[in-house]
């Protein structure tokens, strides 16, 4: 089966990022495919490469990166939600004249259409809310 997953909560502020990761991992272990993981609302913060995880706690970003590389699915961060929450790529850095970009290279900035596209192309859609 093909799964589309959306995540709505920020790491550390909600459990959504952790639950979604564990679910994605189990999905792939079971032989399913993931069409796309869409990070929306506060979950766009998952794609921030500047955060420093405390000891003992999950460093979910690097594991998302590994999982997506190994299983070839997209980690999609919603552009409208991410700009205001300070997760920007090189293009946004230049356009808004910001001193730096901070999007993790494993993540891609996309529009909301990519959420709908993932839902339309998947057998199942599941969201991890906050």
């Amino acid at each position, binding site marked *: 089966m093909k*799964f589309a997953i959306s995540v709505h909560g920020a790491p550390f502020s909600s459990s959504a990022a952790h639950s979604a990761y564990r679910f994605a991992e189990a999905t792939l272990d079971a032989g399913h495919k993931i069409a796309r993981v869409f990070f929306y609302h506060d979950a766009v913060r998952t794609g921030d490469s500047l955060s420093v995880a405390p000891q003992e706690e999950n460093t979910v970003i690097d594991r998302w990166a590994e999982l997506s590389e190994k299983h070839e699915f997209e980690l999609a961060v919603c552009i409208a939600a991410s700009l205001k929450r300070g997760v920007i790529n090189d293009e946004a850095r230049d356009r808004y004249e910001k001193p730096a970009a901070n999007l993790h290279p494993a993540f891609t900035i996309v529009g909301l259409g990519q959420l709908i596209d993932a839902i339309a192309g998947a057998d199942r859609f*599941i969201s991890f809310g906050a």
Partner: protein
Amino acid sequence: MATLHLVNSQTALQSCLDVAADDDSVLLIEDGVYGATTDVARALLVLAPDVEARGLKDRIPSTAESIDYDQFVALVETHKPIVTWC
């Protein structure tokens, strides 16, 4: 196909139960697992790691079945749609 309801807060549980059909499945995750500590007049599933983290292992009644992530995925295979209540 029956619906899978994913409940991740205690306050959302009642809204979910109000519209869940008898043959739907209701899975409590994250803070939703606290919902299993009170009397609920239907079968519930709880996600084991979330129960364990909160120290609730001995406080979940036997009417609530504890499952792991692999069983969670199996539930998603056999249900559609999946509705999240948070």
